[in-house]
């Protein structure tokens, strides 16, 4: 009895011993119970729809008229669909390689340290929260207004360090003594010589726009051998005289004042104090004019339009990398850990440098793992949907379009052309098959 193990036919399986020859039903009834439910579900929900979708793709939107390959033709002619194809191509070319590379870098860094769990968790965590939630998070991050969007806030900080924005948004001279505009600067017409005082009064500045730290404007004293002046808000509620520094009028700090020579070129520059005063010390004798420089009026940073038509796809790709780098890192780290230490040691004792060890020993040994990660990403990238529909606002969905999104929008998102939608689905299927076939073959070899 103990000899009759795993033979091809074992008609007594599943039956109490001692019965006669079982019937077909008894023999395979058990199998039916075990396999039946799963097979029914698979048949009804996967096999049958696949066939129906293929057939449906050859009919028009109503489903009544046979149109042959027309839908497939549309796939390659319609603008929106072509954008989807182009975008998916970009995704395929860029993202899997990028994710694998980032994962590799992280895994290598991690290998050199202990206590790596916290880092692993931080980087892997986005995988848990779904591509849709990730999309919502990044939609928030990519807001154009630097006051809201984190990415642009960071960019603004960098930009402000490099070229700060002006303190005033707009202003006009309070008297005819000054001419010009924010672009070229507001120039005081009166020619100045050393020892003169320049008064640059401005109006048209809202109280909320007066730079912080402004104090009561002060008319400065003359400076021998230099030129002094004041830039102030020449506006006294309830009257007052234009062109004169009066009480309750605030000086404007942080304003860039230029001293220009007879040719209009700026020879000296300074910034006003809290009370609006400025001073050019030790000026060579000559004729000058004072001007409020254009930098004073430079626009505050408006922010990069990540969610705009041109940058939307790269932006979404970046969010995708944020999600999947953790996957690549974990798998590659496991692969790294599996490399026998002796091989690396042997290479090192043979005199190889770290870089050589890495390139000649580690990478080739990692090749299978890197391939797994790369191919997995290829498959997922082909089907990308959630993150695109979450990050891309309605207005740029056409620009951010990808195949899976196009299929959904065409079938259920308003266009309601089931024939075309079916064709897109079949197209996606055809794209995925070769890549998955490679994967399945690898699994079969290892199973």
């Amino acid at each position, binding site marked *: 009895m*103990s000899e009759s*193990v795993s033979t091809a036919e074992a008609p007594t*399986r599943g039956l*109490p011993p001692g019965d006669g020859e079982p019937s077909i039903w008894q023999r395979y009834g058990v199998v039916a*119970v*075990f*396999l039946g*439910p*799963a097979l029914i*579900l*698979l048949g*009804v929900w996967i*096999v*049958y*729809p*696949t066939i129906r979708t293929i057939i*449906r793709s050859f009919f028009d939107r109503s489903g009544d008229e046979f149109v042959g390959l027309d839908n497939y033709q549309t796939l390659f002619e319609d603008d929106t669909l072509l954008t989807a194809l182009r975008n998916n191509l970009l995704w395929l070319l860029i993202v899997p390689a990028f994710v694998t590379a980032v994962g590799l870098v992280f895994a290598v*860094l*991690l290998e*050199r*340290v202990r206590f*790596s769990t916290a*880092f692993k*968790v*931080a*980087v892997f*965590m986005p*995988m*848990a*929260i*779904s*591509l*849709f*939630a*990730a999309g*919502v*998070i990044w*939609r928030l*991050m990519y807001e154009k207004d*630097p*006051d*809201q969007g*984190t990415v642009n806030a960071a960019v603004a900080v960098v930009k402000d360090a490099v070229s700060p924005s002006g303190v005033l948004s707009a202003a006009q001279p309070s008297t005819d003594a000054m001419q010009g505009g924010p672009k070229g600067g507001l120039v005081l017409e009166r020619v100045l010589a050393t020892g003169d005082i320049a008064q640059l009064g401005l109006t048209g500045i809202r109280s909320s726009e007066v730079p912080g730290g402004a104090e009561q404007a002060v008319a400065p004293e003359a400076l021998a051998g230099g030129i002094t002046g004041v830039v102030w808000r020449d506006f006294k509620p309830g009257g007052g005289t234009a062109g004169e520094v009066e009480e309750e009028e605030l000086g404007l700090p942080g304003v860039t004042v230029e001293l220009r020579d007879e040719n209009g070129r700026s020879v000296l520059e300074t910034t006003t104090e809290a009370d609006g005063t400025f001073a050019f010390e030790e000026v060579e004798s000559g004729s000058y004019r004072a001007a409020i420089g254009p930098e004073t009026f430079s626009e505050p940073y408006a922010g990069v339009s990540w969610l705009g038509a041109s940058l939307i796809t790269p932006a979404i790709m970046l969010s995708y990398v*944020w999600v999947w780098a953790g996957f690549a890192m*974990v*798998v590659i780290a496991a*692969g790294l850990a599996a490399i026998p230490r002796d091989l690396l040691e042997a290479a090192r004792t043979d005199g190889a440098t770290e870089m050589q060890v890495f390139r000649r020993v580690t990478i080739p040994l990692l090749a299978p793992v890197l391939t797994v*990660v790369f191919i997995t990403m290829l498959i997922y990238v082909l089907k990308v*949907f*959630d993150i695109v529909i979450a990050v891309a606002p309605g207005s740029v969905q056409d620009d951010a379009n990808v195949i899976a999104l196009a*299929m*959904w929008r065409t079938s*259920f998102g308003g266009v309601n052309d*089931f024939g075309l939608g079916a064709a897109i689905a*079949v197209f*996606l*299927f055809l794209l995925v*098959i070769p890549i998955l*076939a490679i994967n399945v073959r690898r699994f079969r070899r*290892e199973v």
Partner: protein
Amino acid sequence: MTTAEIEPGGVESREPTATRIVRYLGKAPVYLVLVFLGLLWLVPTIGLFFTSLLDSTVVGRVGWWEIFSTPSLGTLENYGDILDNDAITSALLTTLWVSIGSTILPIFLAALAAYAFAWLEFPGRDWLFLVVVALLVVPIQMALIPIFSLYNDLGLFDTIPGLILFHTAFGLPFAIFLLRNFFIGIPKDLLEAARIDGASEMRIFFRLILPLGLPAIASLAIFQFLWVWNDLLVALTFARETQPITVAIFSQLRQFSANLEVIAPAAFVSLAIPLVVFFAFQRYFVEGLLAGSVK
């Protein structure tokens, strides 16, 4: 030179402290880079969390980082509001039912089928198994249109069972594949002994196979649960009134700036569950991942 005494489990055992410190200092740049990158990776999620705390009067106009300088901008009101918001709470409940159902059912059915493929004999068994695994290739998009019509005819459209059945079907190929490979590893003698003792296949399945298969089943369950909880595509296609949370948030996205005080807390709550599951079962997550991808 350090004296490396051969102790069990370690080679470098007695390094002078000075050498150790120098070694750690050499690694300091790596540590710094890792800490920086790790924090960078956390920023987006932290951003969402603090955005969800912003008072509804300022959200959308002020950056979430302002909370650190002006704590009064933060409030738990938004969370209170969404808990009062019926659409959101029922969506969360729907998601819970769909996720639980779509985890238990496919794993149970897959385990049954996997056992049949592993230990029951019948003609065409291996060929059929390959066909089932091959179904992994089929993208969900292929099923959407016909099932949409089918559900309309059967009255399954916009129902929780409808969603569960769809997720179950598409969860089967991978689950069957994984479990069958696992079951094959169970020692034959155990099964033979049980059969000789006269146990029915059902009994063997429930008393022997399932308990033994628990590690693989646990990994699978976690993955499936998270996958279904986070799904948008299927929910978007087959749900209207009975919406999972992903769809509920999605419909709010239309008026993104206006609805941030709903979107941010709802999104955070919806991702809190997977996060908790993730942290609780980290180990299985990684193991399951590796089992599926690397051999």
